[in-house]
């Protein structure tokens, strides 16, 4: 095919795409309008039914809790797969982090970076913890909280403390925490079945004040378990990659 023919081929295809795209646009609902019945219905009943003012969390961990279990195990499988693929291979040597280009002088990370990163570790961990434990009250949840909690560990590495990062996050502990987090979610659902209720039925007391930390029954508990699972999974993934990049060579 000559470049000229290719250009014609592209022009025809692009024109067809644009036509179909514009045609599809005319069938869309208006900007900001939502035609489905479920959104309005959930907004009407969610706070009364679950005592959670964070309605998105109520949807994630209750109304469509079973979907969320599946999503949780996507991350679980990804972290497990990463551990298997990036394990230490027989022909790989594990060495201390070494400067591979000795002729080039690498400036050490500046005190400003180190101090700023270290100062942010505490507040970041607190923010992550707060988000993971307040899913029932405000827009947050186990996933967001867990990732922020994990980034507190990554900040320790950014502060130049690779060995501290690894010492604070031993793989055995991370694996255990991740398993407890993922298993906890499933177990909370199975407990409902043991009580002759539907899977993931909210059987815990909902509390009296909507949106309070102690409200919303299983929603808050599941969010907490998701939080520790996600935090452990992300620290595990970044830790594996750091090992792979800094320590190992074939």
């Amino acid at each position, binding site marked *: 095919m000559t470049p000229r023919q290719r250009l014609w081929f592209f022009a025809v295809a692009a024109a067809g795409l644009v036509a179909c795209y514009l045609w599809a646009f005319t069938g869309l609902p208006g900007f900001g309008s939502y035609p489905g019945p479920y959104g309005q219905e959930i907004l009407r009943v969610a706070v009364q039914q679950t005592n959670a003012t964070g309605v*998105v*969390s109520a949807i994630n961990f209750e109304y469509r809790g079973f979907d969320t279990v599946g999503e949780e195990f996507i991350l679980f499988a990804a972290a497990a797969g990463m551990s298997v693929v990036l394990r230490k291979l027989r022909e790989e040597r594990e060495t201390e982090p070494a400067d*591979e*280009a000795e002729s080039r002088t690498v400036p050490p990370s500046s005190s400003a970076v180190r101090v700023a990163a270290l100062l942010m570790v505490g507040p970041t961990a607190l923010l992550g913890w707060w*988000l993971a434990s307040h899913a029932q009250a405000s*827009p*947050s*949840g186990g*996933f*967001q909280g867990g*990732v*922020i909690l*994990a*980034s507190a560990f*990554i900040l320790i590495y950014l502060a130049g403390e690779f060995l501290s990062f690894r010492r604070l996050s031993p793989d055995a502990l991370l694996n255990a925490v991740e398993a407890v987090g993922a298993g906890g979610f499933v177990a909370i659902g199975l407990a409902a079945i043991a009580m002759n209720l539907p899977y993931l039925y909210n059987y815990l007391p909902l509390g009296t004040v909507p949106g309070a930390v102690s409200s919303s029954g299983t929603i808050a508990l599941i969010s907490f378990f998701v939080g520790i699972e996600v935090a452990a999974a*992300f620290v595990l*993934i*970044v830790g594996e*990659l*750091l090992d*792979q*990049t800094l320590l190992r*060579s*074939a």
Partner: protein
Amino acid sequence: MISAGLMNTLQVTVLVLVAVGATVVVRTRTRVRQVLALSVYGMLLAILFLVFQAPDVTLSELTVGAVVLPIILLLAIAKVRKREQ
């Protein structure tokens, strides 16, 4: 309260910024710079979700798109570079 007109202006502005950001990411040719552009793009997407009143998604996008994904990519680039040497 923010007026509806201002909100619309804000939404259009952020949509344009996201389109520009995505183009910059695709057009950047140096690997490390592309990752940094991707991180900024993640931040822009987070702002977009905030402006469209989805704070939950904002938090997820901010943590994954602007922080964790760039870190994973930077580590992968460092590993590949090490092997090339």
